[in-house]
């Protein structure tokens, strides 16, 4: 009870982001804008073919002020870090604030799945979570974002009109009435406000 009233309306404890087709461009807009002293952990699922994710991590590590890595099993989730789901694993948040991985079946033909990350994060963080769905050509993330909203978290969706692929943000807006439709600049501003020291 006290836990709940504490976090409700209070500062978020984490950010989760999901993106598919066009992900790199969109994330290049967002992640390098986060400052060194950013206070939140940022957990990300990107759909790319298995085996390609490590390149992603290297790409963003070179451009970001925050440390960027692939998630490892049972690793503690730390503020001010960017963690990508590793290729061919689902990445989940455990209630104690650690990562766990799974090789469960694909969801929407994808492992990692955005829904899997978002639903587990909603469960672990409750209202103290910001969920962001970006460009993509499928429906992964819609159910997950709805779960974030239902737990009282903040939900943001890239404006489909400005997205490289509009299906994913459109599905998210449809499944999650509470979500705010935003430009990438708007999303950056919201994330900065959420994680300011």
């Amino acid at each position, binding site marked *: 009870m006290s836990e709940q009233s504490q976090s409700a309306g209070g500062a978020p404890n984490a950010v989760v982001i999901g993106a598919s087709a066009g992900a790199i461009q969109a994330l290049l807009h967002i992640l390098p804008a986060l400052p060194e002293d950013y206070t939140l952990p940022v957990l990300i699922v990107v759909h790319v073919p298995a085996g390609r994710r490590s390149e992603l991590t290297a790409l963003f590590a070179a451009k970001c002020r925050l440390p960027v890595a692939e998630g490892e099993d*049972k*690793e503690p989730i730390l503020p001010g870090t960017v963690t990508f789901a590793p290729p061919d694993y689902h990445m989940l948040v455990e209630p104690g604030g650690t990562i766990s991985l799974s*090789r469960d079946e694909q969801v929407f033909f994808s492992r990692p799945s955005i829904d899997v990350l978002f*639903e*587990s994060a909603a469960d672990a963080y409750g209202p103290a979570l910001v969920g962001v769905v970006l460009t993509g050509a499928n429906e992964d993330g819609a159910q997950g974002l709805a779960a974030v909203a239902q737990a009282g978290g903040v939900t943001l969706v890239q404006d489909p009109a400005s997205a490289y692929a509009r299906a994913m943000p459109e599905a998210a807006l449809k499944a999650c009435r509470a979500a705010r439709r935003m430009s990438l600049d708007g999303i950056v501003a919201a994330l900065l406000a959420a994680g300011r020291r």
Partner: protein
Amino acid sequence: MEDEKIEDIEIRLLLEALYRRYHYDFRNYAQASIKRRLRQARDRQGVATYSALQDKLLHDPAAAAGVLRFLTVQVSDFFRDPSYFKAIRETVVPHLKTYPSLKVWIAGCSAGEELHSFAILFREEGLEDRTLFYATDINQDALEAASRGIYPLDRMKAFTENYRLAGGKASLSDYYSTGYGGAVFDKSLRDRVVFSDHSLVTDAVFSEMQLISCRNVMIYFDRDLQDRAVGLFRDSLGRGGFLGLGSKETLRFSEHVGAFSEFVREEKIYQRRQA
């Protein structure tokens, strides 16, 4: 929020019930993924709550058997993460060649893809005759499938590519024939394999092994349970024995980290320390 709390109580009670009634112990599995799995099981059983599911499973052993199998995940490949098998071949095998006889434990072998990969590798490296494999899992269906060694033909293309990347010396198709609507792997690959129902949660150590491969099994455990399993491995390994984990698993957070050294760091291959 209130509802979710009730749900968590129900899940705890359900896992306790499964343990007491059927001796399957999922109580210390990583919460987030077991919860997801249970939700799917609940929906498939067509009941609205975990309490109702508990009622059903306590009184209907047939339904329980189905759900218990469903709770363990069975996704695997031949030569999954080819670089792991390549590292075994190039850096572990030379050590193994110095032993007159070998015991190898594939823990959480699922339907046998990893086991067959090792059997093929050991044959190609001339270690087959001196090796005894132990292939264990808690899922009966998986163990049966592993001992049959038949896999869908449509997966052979990907497995062949993995085999090649893993440093395979022949052609994967040399090891199977086509029949029963699948790829039937050569029975002789399983001549020196003991299949057994063994749980890393509740069962005891095995006799002295030179190599244990336990990949993508402990990711389903919480940290305490991982400690238990790694303790089993430590006690089952001879001095200088090897332990291979999945590509995103680590002993870094384990209470037994001191008992092992990193042998091939990037492939998560560890070696039991000498003293």
